[in-house]
């Protein structure tokens, strides 16, 4: 086996009661199938999950921290953008 490092994968797990997959960490694996196996061993030992996604880290496009201001600041102080003024009937369930 060559000394080259295996590529990095980001791991997302949907928990027992969760609705969404959540990012839980990353790991190294040579391909997707082994990344799933590794994720099972590294991140779900305590029955944390019911479903696993793995994504090659290189395929994730991230926003640049230096653009934080222009991207996020305008959203501040506009409370009307938060739907907190509506009464949601119980029957609707999780939003």
């Amino acid at each position, binding site marked *: 086996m060559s000394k080259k490092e295996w590529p990095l994968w980001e791991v997302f797990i949907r928990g027992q009661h969760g609705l969404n997959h959540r990012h839980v960490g990353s790991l*190294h694996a040579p391909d997707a199938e082994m990344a799933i*196996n590794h994720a099972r*061993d590294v991140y779900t030992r305590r029955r944390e999950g019911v479903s696993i996604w793995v994504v090659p880290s290189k395929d994730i496009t991230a926003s640049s921290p230096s653009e934080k201001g222009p991207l996020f600041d305008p959203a501040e102080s506009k409370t009307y953008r938060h739907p907190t003024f509506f009464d949601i009937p119980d029957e609707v369930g999780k939003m």
Partner: protein
Amino acid sequence: MSEMPTNATADAAVTDQALQPAFFDWLCRMGDNALVLGHRTSEWCGHGPVLEEDIALANTALDLIGHTQMWLGLAGEVEGKGRDADALAYLRDAMKFRNFLLVELPRGDMAVTMMREFLFDAYHHLLLAWLSENSSSPRVSEIAAKALKEVSYHLDRASDIVVRLGDGTAESHRRMQDALDLLWPYTGEMFTSDEVDRAMVTAGIAPDLEMLRSKWEASVRDILEEATLKAPDPGGYAHLGGKQGRHTEHLGYILAEMQFLQRAYPGASW
């Protein structure tokens, strides 16, 4: 490690005096295979080739130690002399251990480790599947059903790695073929019946080993073929004796390490 279950499933086999010596021996075989392979696998903890494999091996070892607690716990009940799983694991001498020679061989490199796990898992999986479905002993079925889920994953993982390394680089292929040639003569013991096995078959507790052998050979051959590895001829020389307590020199070293604490400080716990 374990305590006698207070609300255990009713099981006539557990208190059957005529069956007791063979049943106890057979349960020790189940427990000791899991214990010794679990210990061998745990030797990788902190030494794995990559972090992810290190954790996977440690998980496998823990699963096997968990199975040991269940099998040896039941063995202690069947024996009826007040020995629990701890007493059987930590205070028996090598001659009283009933594991296959296959599982006590040194861990070797990753090729030997994963090839051994694969060869054993393929047997273990077939055996547990039969026990969970068909065993006349409800307690045995219960334990087998619990262990089967974990062993299914062990077998998937080991098969995957055998194929990757066998059909990998020239070096990984050579190491896997060497591992296979080294371990193959130790696989015959899994399917060689003695009077204990025959008593278990008669009682309906465990399956006929010849039936397991043909299924094992078929499934192992498929994976080895995919891995581009050449299986030695079946029916060749088989190293025997572990099931009857005649072990290689390697088992003594494992027990020396594993049992030291309980021998030096009897009853120590934390």
